[in-house]
């Protein structure tokens, strides 16, 4: 089942001589439960692609549909609610709410939806993330790895159709990076979660189903190669 469909996506910044084509006619699709990684050099257009898919940024042309819904034709309020319910974000710098505890941070998207979180779901996620003991801690009382695990929990709580992770291990050491990758893989398998992750750590692509490479705004599908190594 196709969850994400990106068609002829272009994004241009500036005009005239200052014009930069960050994305050039990018098209690809992701199936339900697929865990894909986008790799590329710094400035190649990876983050722009992720921002356009997550409707954080507006593409110059082309379309992004999530389960048939075109995000960029929606009104702002509608798009926000759609994003809240269907897209989970994981940022490099965690972006946890410093005033909220680990548990509150995890259930934050549900609170924004003015719904009551299911205690069983929360417990399950906390257990999976190994944060049960730390559920009442504030972000500044956690290590970087624990903070990123809490951010993964926040992305998972609404059972979104798609999780977008922007360099989720960028601020972590190798041990914590591996833990985070294991968690994402586990989530992908356990919840049949579709995940699109940006990374420039080639070692991390070992555990993903599919690798996409962006070079100067052009996307190349390197296909499913769990053991591919880039020099």
């Amino acid at each position: 089942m196709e969850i994400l469909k990106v068609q002829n996506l272009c994004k241009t910044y500036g005009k005239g001589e200052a014009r930069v084509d960050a994305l050039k006619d990018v098209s690809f699709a992701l199936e339900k439960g697929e865990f894909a990684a986008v790799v590329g050099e710094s400035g190649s257009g990876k983050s722009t692609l992720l921002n356009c898919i997550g409707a954080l940024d507006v593409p110059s042309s082309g379309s992004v549909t999530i389960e048939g819904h075109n995000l960029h034709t929606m009104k702002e309020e509608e798009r926000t609610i759609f994003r809240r319910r269907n897209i989970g974000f994981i940022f490099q710098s965690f972006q946890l709410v410093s005033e909220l505890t680990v548990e509150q941070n995890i259930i934050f998207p549900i609170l924004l939806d003015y719904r009551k979180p299911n205690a069983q779901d929360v417990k399950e996620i906390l257990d999976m993330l190994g944060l049960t003991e730390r559920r009442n801690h504030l972000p500044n009382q956690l290590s970087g790895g624990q903070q990123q695990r809490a951010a993964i929990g926040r992305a998972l709580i609404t059972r979104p159709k798609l999780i977008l992770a922007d360099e989720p291990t960028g601020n972590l050491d190798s041990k914590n990076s591996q833990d985070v990758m294991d968690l994402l893989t586990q989530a992908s398998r356990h919840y049949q979660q579709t995940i699109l992750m940006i990374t420039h750590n080639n070692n991390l692509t070992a555990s993903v189903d599919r690798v996409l490479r962006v070079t100067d705004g052009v996307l190349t599908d390197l296909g499913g190669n769990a053991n591919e190594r880039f020099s």
Partner: protein
Amino acid sequence: MKGFLDLVPSSAKVHKKQSRMSVFCIILSVFLVTAIFGMADMFIKGQILQAQSENGNWHIGIRDITDEDAAVLAARPDIKTVSAYGVLNFRGDQGYTLSNKDAAIFGCDEAMVKDIFEMLSEGAFPQAEEEALVSDNAKETLGLKTGDQITVKTASGEELQFTISGFATSTANLLREDSLGVLLSTEGFRAICPEVKNGNASDYNTMFYVQLANTRHIQNTIQDIKASFSLTDDQISENTKLLGLLGQSSSAFMMQVYGAAIVLFVLVLCAGILMITSSLNSNVAQRIEFFGLLRCVGATPKQVMRLVRKEALHWCRLAIPIGVVTGTIVVWLMCFVLRWLSPIYFGGMPIFSISIPSIIAGICVGLLTVLLAARSPAKKASKSSPLAAVSGNANDLQPVRRAANTKLFKVDTFLGIHHAKSSKKNFVLMVGSFSLSIILFLSFSVTIDFMKHALTPLHPWTADLSIISPDQTCSVRNGLIEELSGNPAVDKVYGRMFAYNVPVVVNGETKTVDLITYEEKQFDWAKNYKLSGSLETAQNQTGTALIVFEAENTIQIGDTVTLNLGEKSSNIEIVGMVSDCPFNNRADVGKLICSEETFQQMTGESDYTIIDIQIAEGATENDVSAIRKMAGGTYTFSDDRMSNSNTRGTYYCFGLFVYGFLVLIALITIFNVINSIAMSVAARMKQYGAFRAIGLSNRQLVRMVVAEASTYAVTGSICGGILGLLCNKILFDKLVGFNWGDPWNIPVAELAVIIAVVVIAVILAIRGPIKKIRDMSIVDTISAQ
């Protein structure tokens, strides 16, 4: 780049937006101080001009000293002028007349007319004992000119002959009392003083008016004079108003006023410091990563502190001149309005005057405040860890110690409240700056009560000219009203009939009342003073009257009062009560107001006791003379224009100062709130971006910002309200209670106004940032600097 401090201008360019807010805060503070000090300076200058013109440019008066002592005093280098002054028949009770009109006889030295009062309008000061200056009103009424002979009659029938050497401006008292002024030299005056021949100065009840050369240490000079001439406290009197305005008064009342001024000055200073501290604090908090980076590359904490201080001073270069210039422009506008309102008094005030004290105060307060305010953020910046620059936690605005309780409110609302309270210091600064605006407003609003008590505002019925029955009977002929109303120089003319000390019986008690009539205009003006009942009934229905409120009065609405007028007795029903009327009588005598028809029915009188005239705008002295001629010589013609204009001038000046000041505080409150909220939102921009990415809708974002702003506003209003009321009470007791014994009441209207201003400011304040966030893409919000 020669040194690390050269980073400041480059950094300012990059952080233009944040710098702009801090610069704006400094401008506001400097503007506030410059405008307030400038306005106060202008007010004092205006008042000094008015006091000198009204009461004379003298500082102390000394009585019971010899002429020799006066001469020694005049020779002192710290004394500019000394003039002897004596008066006869000032209150019209010693029987001196000129052409059958009361005449006040003054005796003084030339300095009095030229230096102290500047009242010589024509001719020269009397050089011989038989020469006299005559007041301008005598010149007009008697058609006199320089060189004419006048004869002053004394009570004993003696005739004193004088040659007119010139004319002097009429004083307000002469015009009000409808008496004429004859001014002699001291020698001339002493020669005619009854029962004293060649006596001492004290025998002529002479007062020596002294103008000091140096107005800086007047109290010291007074003490010195006292010691040198062995004078007692009773022998020396101060020109309290002028000395008060010069900041040199020793009177208890002025001490209270100075005390109040110091409290207000400290409040203004605190407002400035808080505003700038809050801005710098927020600015530094946003750039903690930058300072961490500086520490990373080797800057010592001391260097970071110097950098922050230099940055603050860098803003001052632009902000202080702008603040001073805008403050001065506001003062100029005020001067312009003042000249326009009262050209007689403030015509001499230059519009484009530069108030040096206000500029110095603006610059000093700006610089001092910035340096003081920069201390704490500079320390904070210097403490920023190098790790902060390289870890993702650098953007955490403040370390959070307690988690939010998301069960009480919706998460967006709660986060807003939590944002406001998360940093204790920031919260205190924000609430402090909100509170201070309210405290300032409530404190300064006391000056309105002070003004209303200190300066009797002119009532709508206040007359410029009055034609009064000399024996206070109904003898001013009725037809005069019609004749006067036909005169184009007359704007309004209205008469009142009086029956004084009428014995009445009410509810079985015998009392005394004065019965007065109103006509249409006066009934109309009385509407604003109505306490209860119906004015219309008293106006249209005969046999009814109004009672004027008096604490001792027991007559109530609905009572029937039996008046005993001669042999006739008639009943009158009380149908309404008013708080005030145009005349005062003894406290134990009641005042009843009825229509002219009712009065005629009761007394049979149809002529007036007094006819009041309000003259038309632009009416000239000739017009007034024509009115005087119309009235004829049988009545007392009272001219109150000068004293009205004095009152009006002071009232306008003070009113403009007080209300201008309150408007200024209200505007500062609005700017401060807008700036504070904008800074607070700007500081959290990145976080808002992340929230939006996670799924926070614009509506929820609005709620979050509103909740944050409301937290500041509500807490600020509560704290400001409580402390403001406390300050209000202290100042009220100092300025009003001390003098007039009024009890303090909660100033509900003022409190409501300032809280409404805060609410409006908050509404205005959240519009801008919300629109900005809405217009920004989420990516831009996340990466906002």
